[in-house]
């Protein structure tokens, strides 16, 4: 596989990651969100593998396998079990209407493109052009956390942000040191358990996972 072709495949995978990020932003159903999240993780894992192959940095293979087990299998499974226990099927409420969210997302993509333009000029890596997509994925995850009211969707937005960060690391510097990546993976796993405990607490206290309910926690004045 020559560098040219690898760069092209990587670009396509980057485009797919961006597409799934937008999919997460507009998807209303919980199950659809989980599938999209798993799909994003899958594209990320393949992209990391391709970059690892073409750059000769073989640590990236481990990172790719880690992503595959964590983001494609383990985390979606944990979230799925949580949703079944809490009987969540779909989320209707969004703060901003979905077509407006799409336009905001497009604006964010343009913004991240402009932000990363100077870095792309300086970099010599094969993956330099995907940096804009990585930043855009982070921003879109952020936007998702802002525009959704439901606790579980906010968590998925957070995890999508983490996907974006990992992708940014891969495309900017051929990945973080392996120790850091192992640490992040462990953190995520623990975070997923803590989220689970929190979900149970929120839903038993408020009988709903709508985070707007938390406004009731403040003192009366």
């Amino acid at each position, binding site marked *: 596989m020559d560098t040219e*072709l690898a760069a*092209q*495949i990587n*670009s*396509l995978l*980057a*485009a797919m990651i*961006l*597409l799934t990020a*937008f999919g997460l932003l*507009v998807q209303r159903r919980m199950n659809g969100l989980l599938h999209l999240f798993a799909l994003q993780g899958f594209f990320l894992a393949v992209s990391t593998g391709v970059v690892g192959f073409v750059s000769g940095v073989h640590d990236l293979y481990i990172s790719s396998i880690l992503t595959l087990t964590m983001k494609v299998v383990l985390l979606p499974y944990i979230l799925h079990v949580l949703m079944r226990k809490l009987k969540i099927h779909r989320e209707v409420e969004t703060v901003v209407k*979905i*077509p407006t969210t*799409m336009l905001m*997302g*497009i604006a964010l*993509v*343009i913004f991240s*493109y402009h932000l990363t333009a100077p870095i792309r000029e300086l970099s010599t890596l094969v993956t330099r*052009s*995907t940096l*804009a*997509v990585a930043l855009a994925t982070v921003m879109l995850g952020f936007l998702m956390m802002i525009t959704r009211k439901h606790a579980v969707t906010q968590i998925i937005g957070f995890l999508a942000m983490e996907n974006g960060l990992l992708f940014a690391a891969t495309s900017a510097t051929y990945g973080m040191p392996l120790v850091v990546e192992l640490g992040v993976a462990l953190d995520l796993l623990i975070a997923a358990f803590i989220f689970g405990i929190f979900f149970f607490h929120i839903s038993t206290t408020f009988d709903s996972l709508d985070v707007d309910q938390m406004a009731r926690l403040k003192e009366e004045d």
Partner: protein
Amino acid sequence: MKINPFVTEILQIAVLLFMAPLFAGWVKMVKCWFQGRTSQSLFQPYRDIRKLLSKDVAIAENASWIFRFTPYLVFGVCIMAGGIIPVISTDLPLTATADVIALVALFAIARFFTALAGMDIGTAFGGMGSSREMTIASLAEPAMLMAVFAVSLVAKSTSLSQMAIIVSHGHSLLRPSLVFALLAFILIALAETGRVPVDNPATHLELTMIHEAMILEYSGRHLALIEWAGMMKLFLFVTLGISSFFPWGIAQTDDLTAVLAAFPVLLFKLGIVGVGLILIETGLAKMRIFRITEFLGSAFLFATLGMLSFFMLE
């Protein structure tokens, strides 16, 4: 052996005129198979057109010239569009006169007059259909232009022939911008040709129809022309998609054998697209009309992402 480009042009328009009903028949046939019904003959659309052509025209008393003029205009516009889109060959004299933006405008003219004719008689259904059609058009056209621009950025030209030639060289399926543009184009083509998630072409159910509501008052040869133009529009959108995203096999010279060799390839592609179209149609249910904004909004999103990824990733 050389073939005059003007002959190719005439040949192509003949292909459009006579293969469009065949394609419509094929789509209906595959749909019947997928739904487990016995299908009508592949040539039924020809018989329908012949029957309608031989019937008398009944026109409402208060119909104006717009009502009488529209079928001819819509039919003519479709033939003109068929002269621009490279169906069997890219070596067409008419492609130099109009690019893809003009093509979008041509379809817009046809739609504008159909909507006017829908309102002309003054029946409630006509007005309802026209208003719905224009709502969809106002969302579909920007998305269509964006999708087309994404392809013309890759081809560095808005000429359809040029786009087909550039895309057919080089492994373009790996280009993110074309993948996004293709996704957007599929959504837009479904909306523009009135296929299932947006409009149901097989029904005259009053509350859901869009295109049928506008042409409800037409009869005889007027109806024949409008129906025929509808089939041509479907055919044109399919060939537009083929020539901008999968142009392999299209004739690129004025060589007779190349032009003739383009036919089986075209038939093969049309057959596959027909099956794909029906897979989409049977897999989806018709949408509520207020969900169409989201449907076409995502088409716009895909098209814009296509343009952006051209700058970002290529």
